[in-house]
């Protein structure tokens, strides 16, 4: 198992954010996390990334308990793509991507690190803007830069918090195809997605969160069943059968 989360509980002060979450993620799969705003999707991602400390339960990554891993060891296994990013200094794209190497670098990155960062830029298809100031990019382009930065980290597992927000359709498909490429290379990708249609088209597995708990799909039901989605999103919607799955429409 790439990720093994058991009986996870988490809360800020008195409020429970996640309750008793247990899930497994096999290696080489693209897993989508779906749910309403505030259902705990981003929190779950941050917990797996080790950026928040949970109250109880356990998380193992590739068989290792994450609380026993040092930050830098963890960063070599897990790459985390934050939701928004505000730039402060006009670093070039290449310099931003290079910072992904931090867990491998003692003082200053070496040539090997720069080559890995270059490869990451090529993989995402942004090598053409390597010398452009990061501050002058559009929100979507910045997002691609941050994705390249995660890849420069060379993780085994990639966690993405809404990787498609701010992206136009062209860039959405670039990112989704890139995720496919990563999973076929054996990486595990977990992404919070807003659009269930995109998730059904691209992801291999689906995790539904509702009010901090997993919404388990009963035996016989499928993730794209109307009943499941109406319950998860708490809003009337209809599903239209499409290519063996379904398309979701608000009504």
């Amino acid at each position, binding site marked *: 198992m790439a990720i093994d989360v058991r009986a996870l509980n988490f809360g800020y002060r008195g409020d429970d954010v996640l309750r008793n979450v247990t899930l497994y993620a096999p290696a080489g799969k693209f897993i989508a996390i779906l749910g309403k705003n505030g259902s705990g999707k981003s929190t779950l991602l941050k917990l797996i990334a080790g950026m928040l400390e949970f109250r109880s339960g356990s998380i193992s990554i590739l068989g290792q308990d994450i609380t026993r891993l040092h*930050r830098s060891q*963890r960063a070599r296994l897990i790459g*985390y793509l*934050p939701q928004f990013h505000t730039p402060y200094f006009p*670093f070039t794209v290449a310099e931003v991507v290079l*910072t992904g190497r931090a867990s491998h670098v003692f003082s200053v*990155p070496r040539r090997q690190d720069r080559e890995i960062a270059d490869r990451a830029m090529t993989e995402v298809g942004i090598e053409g803007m390597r010398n452009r100031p990061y501050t002058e990019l559009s929100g979507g382009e910045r997002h691609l830069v941050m994705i390249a930065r995660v890849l420069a980290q060379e993780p085994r597992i990639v966690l993405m918090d809404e990787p498609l927000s701010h992206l136009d359709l062209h860039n959405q498909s670039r990112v989704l195809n890139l995720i496919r490429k990563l999973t076929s290379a054996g990486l595990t990708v977990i992404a919070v997605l807003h659009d269930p249609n995109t998730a059904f088209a691209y992801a291999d597995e689906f995790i539904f969160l509702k009010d901090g708990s997993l919404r388990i799909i009963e035996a016989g039901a499928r993730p794209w069943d109307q009943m499941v989605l109406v319950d998860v999103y708490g809003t009337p919607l209809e599903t239209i059968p499409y290519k063996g799955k379904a398309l979701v429409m608000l009504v």
Partner: protein
Amino acid sequence: MSITAKELLLYLLPLPLLLGSLFVGPSEVVSSQDVFSWILRSLHISTLHTYDEALVNAVVMDVRLPRVILVFLTGAALTMSGNSMQALFRNPLVSPDILGLSSGAAFGAALALTIPALPLQPTAFACGLAAVGMSYFLAVNRKVVSTVSLILAGVIVSGIFTSGLTLVQFLTDPFKLQTIVHWTMGNLHNASWKKVVSAAPPIILGGIWLYFMRWRMNVLALGDEETMAVGLNPEREKILILVPATLMATASVAVAGVIGMVGLAVPHMVRMMVSPDNRKALPVSCLFGGSFLLVVDDFSRALASFEIPIGIFTTLIGGPFFIYLLKKNVFRFGEE
């Protein structure tokens, strides 16, 4: 990382400036010609001498050389410190002055000048660090530090330490008072080897330390969450940068007084000239910061028959530059 011609020029800039500054001074007894032939003679190039050997020797070796070195160290320290703090707080508006560090160090140094039992450098460092720490913790609001709250906190902390300084001045005897007042103006006229020896170790130590941290500053400048995501502890990194940056700035305040605007304005000039990449900006901050203050100091020595305190000069230059940056909206002030 290849070096461009412009960078090479910046790297070599200090050499002619350090040498040239030896010729500058308000002394009417020692002319620059005298200094020139003294240098040639000391290097065994010429034996010609038409000057008072002992006098020129004393002026150059005991007055100008320690001063030039002290000025360079001070400029380098303030600029490197300012550059590091701007990266650390992700805020091009911060500097040792704005965070209250300078007032804290000035208070500490005044205290040490009044109470002989207190050692100058450690007291200035302790008070400077306390001031920066206070500004930072006052500004933290739900783990977020905004530009506005950081600057306001700095204003408050500066105010507290400045009134502390005034209190020290009020309570001290008039003889010491004069020393303290002169020194708070940012004055280098009584530079001596003793001061060089007192300031050089903390400045050089802090400089080497920051040099090793220079790329980490790039990582940290992207944000706390982004730093955590790549496997570094942002709080730990901040302390590892803040301590040497404070060490450098307080060491310079302790010997040279408050030299305003250098720590704020010069790092901007450096970033504009080379790049915001601290791998390049930090070494250039050291060399260009030192050179910048040397030139300003040369003016303050040469413009009038008496010396104008250098702190007045740097603020007069830095002020308009700061306004220019504000108008160009470099700070993205208020757009969070």
